[in-house]
Each structure stands twice: as structure tokens, then as C-alpha cells.
């Protein structure tokens, strides 16, 4: 078995790519997969912080590419999950240090001993995006239900189609069910209809995302007590080909609550 290489990208920055990669990495590893997460955002390293591995980095992606270390030496093993590894980005270099071919070679060398390689792409559509999608067999687009994020996602989907990397699949992050219900936010159906790609997950807004990032312990570690945590595990299972139904994003509405109160089952 060789690993599936999945690049997570978005066009627009700040939509939650790094959060998604960290949590999907954890969820997949918890489900018994051998996972490497690669931070491809050279110069703006952050995935290490999200998974709490920032103090264990010795070498990075650019060290591997420029031959200062072997690939194995640069991989940081997560002590909480023996089959989750991080390949960190260089922090003091910029994107010109990496070429598309470099990423292809690194991924080829990782493929044999792992099941999933998740690449956290830089924002934008320039060189960083180009090398991040070069080795990808599959692409996940992250967007928020907001006009600029959807527009940028559409642009990226177009570029991926032009590169024949697709079909890209979609993760809608940070949806606020109560705001959608009031009609003050694009809802899931709107976004899918506009972008015309398959949906692989919906992650509701959850303040636990922030608090778990603060602690460097992704929410997916404690999946049971939050909708967002469960959403990551559901996406991880869908990636493995399981048919997981989309969970309802909110509790019973007002009408339903009244009905239950009047006529308890």
C-alpha cells in the first residue's frame, strides 16, 4: 500500500486550513491510519503549534530538500499517537526554497511507510500553492460560508481543474447554525450549488477550536463532547471511503421543542 497524498488548500487565508489538517491528522491516526502531516507554509510555520510539537523540531522540510538531513530525521513523531508524524516547514526561509519537484520527491519517499500524507498548503495561488498541490492525488478545499472565501475557493477549484488535479472536494468550516437559520449567512446548500463540487465535511463554529489550539492538543483528541470534534472524525472516516451521514448542525428548533413539550414521547 502506498499513501494517499491529500493537499488541503483554500485560496483565501484564515479560513482554517491548518486547523483542519491538524485535526484530520489526529482523527485519522486515532482511527489506526499511519499519517504524516506536512507544513508547506515555508516562512510562516504554524502547524507545529497547532499539534503542540513546536519544541521537538530539529530539522525541517527545507533541510530535507537541501540535503542537510535525511527525511526520517526531520519527521517529528507525536508521542500521544505513535502513527502521527509532522514534517515541519522552515521558518527562516521563504517559498522560493521549494520547487514542485521537491515536494513530489519528498512525498514519494514517505508513501511506502504511511497511509495518508496531508499537506497544509499556504494561502494564495502563487508558488507556495503550486508546490503544495504538485504531489497531490486528491485535493480538499476549505472555505467559510462568506463571500470572499467562496469566491477565492472557486478560483482555486478552477486552477486545480486546469492542472487536472481534481476533482477537488469541499470542507465548509466555521458554519454558524443559528446565523444560517436567521438567513444571515450562506448555508451549506448555497455554497455547494455555487461551487459545484462534492462536499466531504461541514465543521460548525466552536470555541473549543481556539482553546484546544491554545493548548496544542487538537480538538479531535476529545471528539465525543463537541460537534466540531465529531465533524473531524466524520471527515476522516469519509476519506477512508465510509459512508457517514452528515450530522444535524443544531439541536431541535423552537417548534420541535414545543411539540416535544406538549406531547412527550
Amino acid at each position, binding site marked *: 500500500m502506498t499513501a494517499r497524498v491529500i493537499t488541503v488548500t483554500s485560496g483565501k487565508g484564515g479560513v482554517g486550513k491548518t486547523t483542519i489538517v491538524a485535526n484530520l491528522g489526529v482523527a485519522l491516526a486515532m482511527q489506526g491510519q499511519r499519517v504524516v502531516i506536512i507544513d508547506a507554509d515555508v516562512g510562516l510555520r504554524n502547524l507545529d503549534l497547532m499539534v503542540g510539537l513546536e519544541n521537538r523540531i530539529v530539522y525541517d522540510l527545507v533541510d530535507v530538500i537541501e540535503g542537510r538531513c535525511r527525511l526520517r530525521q526531520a519527521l517529528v513523531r507525536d508521542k500521544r499517537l505513535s502513527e502521527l508524524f509532522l514534517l515541519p516547514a522552515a521558518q527562516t526561509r521563504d517559498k522560493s526554497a521549494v520547487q514542485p519537484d521537491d515536494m513530489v520527491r519528498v512525498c514519494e519517499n514517505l508513501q511506502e511507510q504511511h497511509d495518508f500524507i496531508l499537506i497544509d498548503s499556504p494561502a494564495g495561488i502563487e508558488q507556495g500553492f503550486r508546490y503544495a498541490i504538485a504531489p497531490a492525488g486528491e485535493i480538499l478545499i476549505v472555505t467559510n460560508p462568506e*463571500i470572499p472565501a467562496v469566491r477565492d475557493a472557486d478560483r482555486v477549484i478552477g486552477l486545480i481543474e486546469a492542472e487536472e488535479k481534481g476533482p477537488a472536494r469541499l470542507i465548509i468550516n466555521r458554519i454558524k447554525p443559528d446565523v444560517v437559520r436567521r438567513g*444571515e*449567512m450562506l448555508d451549506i446548500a448555497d455554497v455547494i450549488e455555487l461551487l459545484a463540487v462534492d462536499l466531504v465535511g461541514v465543521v460548525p463554529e466552536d470555541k473549543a477550536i481556539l482553546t484546544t489550539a491554545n493548548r496544542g492538543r487538537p480538538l479531535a483528541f476529545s471528539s465525543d463532547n463537541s460537534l466540531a470534534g465529531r465533524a473531524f472524525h466524520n471527515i476522516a472516516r469519509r476519506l477512508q471511503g465510509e459512508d457517514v451521514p452528515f450530522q444535524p448542525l443544531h439541536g431541535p428548533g423552537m417548534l420541535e421543542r414545543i411539540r416535544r413539550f406538549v406531547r412527550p414521547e
Partner: protein
Amino acid sequence: MMKFFERLLGRRYEPSSGEVAKERLRLVLAHDRTSISPALLDTLKDEIITVISRHVAIDAESVQVTFSQSARESRLVADIPLLTRRGRRKR
């Protein structure tokens, strides 16, 4: 449904900001995907009118040239009302 109730109450229907966002996005994506600007669309419309009216009588005022999207395919749709005898009589 909302529309119906609001009309019943004699109020004008205000689309929610979510609906407005969707409409604006639909338009801007059509332009982004095809790199056809609104100005170019106007030019196309004018030239289509010129070419067609050279051969048949059309109602130039009511010509509409718009985008239609199905999945990720974009097409240009021109709606060109012909001036038939019955049409003329109506005017």
C-alpha cells in the same frame, strides 16, 4: 412562504443578507470563471443585436444576454424576442 405572509401584511419583501450574498456571488463567479466583464457582456449584446437585426426584425429593447451555470459549466444565453405580426399589433 415568507414572501406570501409578508405580502399578506402589505409589507415589501426584503431578501435576507444570506440571499443577497448568494445572488452577488452567483454573478461574480460567472464573471470570474469566464473572464467576461459586465462591460464586455454589454458589448456582446449590442453586437448581437446589430447582426441579428440585419436579417430579422427583433425587439431590441427586450434582448437579454446573461450567463447560465450548470455544475461548473458556464454558458452565454441570449434571449432575443422576435417581432412577429401579433407582437407588433400589441405595441
